[in-house]
């Protein structure tokens, strides 16, 4: 354990607690992650990647969305630049995520930031920011927070990679019509609902949900991006209206 948490007892305790809390927070979500990883592993091989290529892809890219988005293009023999452009668009949400995490990780060296960003996934970003977004400026990037992120990352990484590699090796095992990847959506539902706290968040969530359906026809997952931007705008507009309303009633009484 000393190798992981260091030898200074007080610091090691804070690190261990943060790490453990991160693992416990992410644990219920890992069933969905595991099944999603398994499905991605199977899909990569079915599209024509060799076992080595598939394992390299899952270890290096470590993003189910990007990996899955690239597979139909690989199957269709699309030009390289089309695959890359698709990846850029699908990844646009990471730009938002990394801006959100910057205040928490700014004290680290460039090398450590690269390492932390490799572990950035939708789930860990959502759980992290919903927990620490209200932390005052001078309490962002504490040891406890960073190790909480590392705990979530370690849990997600181990489960995702293990299940992906099992999927790659088994490949043909699971019939596609079982629709096991749907458990990932069910897991998202169960993790998202408790995060919708307060009127602005509710308005934002409903807006994003509706726009995502309306814009589902847009190519390259652009609908997701439009929905997120619209949802944030709606949430902030609601917040401003509520503030104004509170000020007005506060002024007249």
């Amino acid at each position, binding site marked *: 354990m000393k190798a992981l948490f260091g030898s200074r007892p007080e610091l090691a305790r804070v690190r261990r607690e943060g790490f453990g809390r991160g693992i416990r927070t992410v644990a*219920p979500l890992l*069933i969905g992650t595991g099944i999603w990883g398994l499905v991605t592993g199977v899909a990569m091989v079915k599209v*024509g*990647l*060799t076992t080595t*290529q598939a394992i390299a*892809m899952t270890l*290096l*890219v*470590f*993003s189910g969305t*990007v990996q899955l988005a*690239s597979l139909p293009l690989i199957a269709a023999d699309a030009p*390289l630049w089309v*695959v*890359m452009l698709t*990846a850029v668009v699908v990844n646009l*949400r*990471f*730009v*938002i*995520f*990394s*801006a*959100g*995490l910057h*205040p928490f990780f*700014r004290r680290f060296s460039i090398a450590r*930031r*690269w390492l932390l*960003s*490799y572990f*950035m996934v*939708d789930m860990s*970003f*959502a759980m992290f920011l*919903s927990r620490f977004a209200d932390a005052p400026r001078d309490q962002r990037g504490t040891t406890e927070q960073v190790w909480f992120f590392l705990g979530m990352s370690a849990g997600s990484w181990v489960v995702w990679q293990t299940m992906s590699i099992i999927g790659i090796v088994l490949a043909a095992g699971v019939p596609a019509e079982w*629709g096991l990847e749907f*458990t990932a*959506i*069910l*897991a*998202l*539902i*169960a*993790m*998202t*609902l*408790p995060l919708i706290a307060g009127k602005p968040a509710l308005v934002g*969530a409903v807006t*994003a*949900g*509706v*726009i995502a359906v309306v814009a*589902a026809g847009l190519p390259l997952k652009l609908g*997701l991006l439009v929905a*997120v931007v619209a*949802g*944030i705008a709606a*949430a902030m507009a609601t917040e401003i209206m509520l503030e104004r309303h509170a000020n007005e009633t506060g002024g007249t009484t």
Partner: protein
Amino acid sequence: MSNVEIWLVVVGLTLVTILMRSSFLMLGDYFPLPERVQHGLRYAPVCALVALVTPELFVTQGAFDLSITNPKLVAGLAAVVVTLTTRSMIAAMAIGMLTFTLLRLLPVTA
């Protein structure tokens, strides 16, 4: 795609993904985001998660599908109800998957 092309895809996806994941962790030192924008980003996770889910439930093969013969919609709504009443993710996934599988095997004829 040829073997070499697939390797190029693997390397390319690796670079694109790590560059975008690290983008503002690096650039944030030089282009700090205004407090207002950072504040708005608090809503990003919820919006992104909801936006990932709704098309999966309401869109079937590219078309808006608001019928009880849409297994994913019905199963998703079941998961919503279970989550709101029990707060248990395992229960939500179990009931949701059971609903989905039953509807898939026993198609409702409208």
